[in-house]
C-alpha cells in the first residue's frame, strides 16, 4: 500500500443544489414508476419546484461565500465561489421555466411522464457542475452529463426531424467531446495536472522544467474547439441550426439557454480563470470566433423562413456577442483589476437564458396550434388572434435585438462597453453592424405577427403553465431593462469572488 486513502471532507450544504437536483431526478423516476399517472401538470410542477429550490439554496450559499470567501469542495473538484452560484441560479431559473413549458408540449403523447423531467434535471445538474468545476475531468463529466441527456431529449420526439436532429447532435457532439477530452489530456501532459488551481500555480512558478509548452498550446487549441462547439460559435456552429430546428421546441429552448450558459461558464473557467498566462495565445482565436459568429449568425439568419432556424442562427450571433465579452475579459485576465469582461458575459448569459426560453415558448405555443409547423407564415396575424401573446413576443424580440429599456440592451451594452474599454474597437464595430443586420430578422417576425393578414383566425390556446413561463420571461426582460441595477449590483461581486 503506497498511500493511505484519505476521503475528502465534504461540505454537504455547499453541495445541496446538486443533491437537490439529482434527488429530484431520481425521485421523479422512482416514485413516478411506482405510482399511477399523476394528475395533469404535476410532473412539471415538481421538477420546476426542484429547480427553484436548488436555485434558492444557491442564493444562501452565495451569502456564505460572500462572508467566508471562496474555496473548493470535494478535494478540489468543485469551486465554491460566487461565480458558481451565479451560474447555478441562472441554470436553475431557465430549467424551471423550461419545465413549466414542457408540460403542454408532451401532454397526451407517449412522452408524458416523469422521464423527460428527470432528463431535464439531470442535464441541468451537468450544467451546474460545468459552471462550478475546478478540475478539467470534473468539467468533462459535467459536460457529458449535460450532453448525454440532451442527445436523448433532442431525439425524444419520434418524428423524422427529431430523429435526424438527435442523430446529428449525437455524432457531432461525440466528436466535439472527444476533441475536448484530447485537449484535457494534452494539457495534462503539459501542466502535469488537471486541477485548474494547480494549473494556474504551475504557470505562476518560475521553474520552467515543470511544464511542456507545446503540449499546453495544443491542448488549449483542442479545448477551445470543444468549447466553441458547445457554445455554437462559428465555424463550429454547423450542428446548431439543424438540431435547433429538428429538436422539440422546449428542448431547443433548454439547449439555447442552459446549454449555452454552461458552455460559456466552462469557457470562462478554462480560459480566463485557469489559463490567464496564455491570454495572448487564446485571445486572437476568440477574436476570430467572435467575428465569424457575429457575421455568419446574423447574415444567415436573414435568409431563413423557419422561425426556429432563424432563432438558431440568431443564437449563433448571440454567441458572437458573448465572445466579444470573453475577448474583452482576455485583455486583463489574471490581473488584479480585471476589467468588466467577465462580468458582462455573466450578465449577458443570465439575461439571454431567460429571454430565449420565453421566445421559444411562444414559438412552441404558436407552432403547436399550426400542427407543428414553425414557418414564419404561421405567425401571421398573431397580433389579431392573441394580442397579449404577440406583445410578449415583441418585447422578447426587441430585447434580442438589444433595444433600450429591455434586458437585451443592458446585456449588449455591457459586452460592448467592456470591449471599448479594452480598445477592441474593431470587434465592437463589427458587433454593432451585425446587430443592425440581425435586427432586421427580429423585425421580420414582428411585422409578420402584427401587420400580416392572418392565415388562421382561431386563436391558439395558451396552456396555463406555459403562459406563466412566458409572462415571467417577459417581466424579467422589462424589469431588468428598466431597473438594471437589480441585476448589475448583484453581479458586481461575482468576478471578485471567482477564483
Amino acid at each position, binding site marked *: 500500500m503506497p498511500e493511505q486513502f484519505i476521503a475528502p471532507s465534504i461540505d454537504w450544504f455547499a453541495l445541496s443544489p446538486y443533491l437537490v437536483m439529482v434527488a429530484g431526478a431520481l425521485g421523479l423516476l422512482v416514485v413516478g414508476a411506482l405510482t399511477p399517472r399523476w394528475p395533469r401538470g404535476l410532473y412539471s410542477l415538481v421538477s420546476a419546484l426542484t429547480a427553484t429550490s436548488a436555485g434558492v439554496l444557491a442564493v444562501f450559499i452565495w451569502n456564505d461565500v460572500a462572508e467566508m470567501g471562496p474555496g473548493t469542495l470535494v478535494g478540489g473538484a468543485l469551486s465554491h465561489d460566487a461565480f458558481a452560484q451565479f451560474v447555478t441560479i441562472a441554470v436553475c431559473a431557465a430549467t424551471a421555466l423550461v419545465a413549466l413549458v414542457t408540460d403542454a408540449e408532451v401532454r397526451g403523447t407517449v412522452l408524458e411522464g416523469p422521464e423527460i423531467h428527470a432528463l431535464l434535471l439531470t442535464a441541468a445538474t451537468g450544467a451546474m457542475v460545468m459552471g462550478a468545476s475546478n478540475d478539467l*475531468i470534473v468539467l*468533462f*463529466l459535467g459536460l*457529458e452529463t449535460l450532453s*448525454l441527456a440532451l*442527445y*436523448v431529449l433532442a*431525439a425524444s420526439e*419520434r418524428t*423524422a*426531424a427529431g*430523429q*435526424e*436532429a*438527435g*442523430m*446529428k447532435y*449525437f*455524432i457531432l457532439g*461525440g*466528436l466535439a*467531446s*472527444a*476533441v475536448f*477530452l*484530447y485537449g*484535457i*489530456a*494534452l494539457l*495534462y*501532459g503539459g501542466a*502535469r*495536472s*488537471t486541477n485548474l488551481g494547480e494549473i494556474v500555480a504551475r504557470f505562476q512558478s518560475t521553474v520552467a522544467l515543470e511544464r511542456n509548452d507545446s503540449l499546453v498550446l495544443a491542448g488549449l487549441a483542442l479545448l477551445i474547439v470543444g468549447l466553441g462547439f458547445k457554445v455554437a460559435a462559428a465555424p463550429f456552429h454547423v450542428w446548431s*441550426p*439543424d438540431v435547433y*430546428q*429538428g429538436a422539440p421546441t422546449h428542448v431547443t429552448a433548454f439547449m439555447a439557454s442552459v446549454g449555452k450558459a454552461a458552455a460559456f461558464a466552462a469557457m470562462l473557467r478554462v480560459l480566463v480563470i485557469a489559463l490567464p498566462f496564455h491570454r495572448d495565445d487564446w485571445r486572437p482565436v476568440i477574436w476570430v470566433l467572435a467575428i465569424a459568429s457575429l457575421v455568419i449568425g446574423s447574415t444567415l439568419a436573414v435568409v*431563413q423562413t423557419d422561425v426556429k*432556424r432563424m432563432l438558431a442562427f440568431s443564437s449563433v450571433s448571440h454567441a458572437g456577442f458573448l465572445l466579444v465579452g470573453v475577448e474583452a475579459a482576455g485583455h486583463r485576465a489574471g490581473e488584479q483589476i480585471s476589467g468588466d469582461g467577465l462580468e458582462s458575459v455573466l450578465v449577458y448569459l443570465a439575461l439571454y437564458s431567460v429571454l430565449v426560453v420565453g421566445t421559444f415558448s411562444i414559438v412552441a405555443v404558436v407552432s403547436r396550434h399550426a400542427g407543428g409547423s414553425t414557418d414564419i407564415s404561421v405567425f401571421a396575424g398573431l397580433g389579431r388572434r392573441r394580442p397579449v401573446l404577440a406583445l410578449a413576443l415583441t418585447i422578447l424580440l426587441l430585447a434580442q435585438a438589444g433595444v433600450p429599456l429591455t434586458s437585451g440592451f443592458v446585456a449588449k451594452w455591457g459586452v460592448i462597453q467592456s470591449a471599448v474599454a479594452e480598445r477592441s474597437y474593431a470587434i465592437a464595430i463589427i458587433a454593432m453592424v451585425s446587430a443592425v443586420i440581425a435586427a432586421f430578422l427580429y423585425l421580420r417576425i414582428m411585422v409578420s405577427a402584427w401587420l400580416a393578414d392572418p392565415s388562421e383566425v382561431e386563436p391558439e390556446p395558451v396552456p396555463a403553465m406555459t403562459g406563466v413561463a412566458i409572462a415571467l420571461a417577459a417581466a424579467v426582460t422589462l424589469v431588468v431593462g428598466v431597473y438594471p441595477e437589480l441585476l448589475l449590483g448583484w453581479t458586481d461581486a461575482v468576478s471578485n469572488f471567482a477564483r
Partner: protein
Amino acid sequence: MEPTTTSYLVLAALLFGIGATGLMIRRNPLVMFMCIELMLNAVNLTFVALATRFSDIDGQTAVFFVMVVAAAEVVVGLGIIISIMRRRPGATVDDLAELKG
C-alpha cells in the same frame, strides 16, 4: 527498440486521427459511432502514457471516468440509432439530411 512515452503519444494521435477521418468518410451510423469510441480510447491511451511518465495517479483515474462516460454514450447512441433503424431500415447518415440551409 524500446517504446518510449512519445511513441505511445504518437500512436494515440494516429488513432485519434483515424477516428476523425472515419467520421468524415464513413456513412454507416454504427461505424461512425465506433470511430468516436476509437477517438475516446486514443485519449485514454494518451492519459495512461502521460500518467506513467509522470508516475502520477491522476491521469490513470481520469481513464476510469472516460470509460464510464463512453459506456453511457454507448447506451444513448445505440438507443438513438436503433430508433432510427426501426423507422427506416438500412438508413445511412447521408439519408438524414432534411434539415439544411
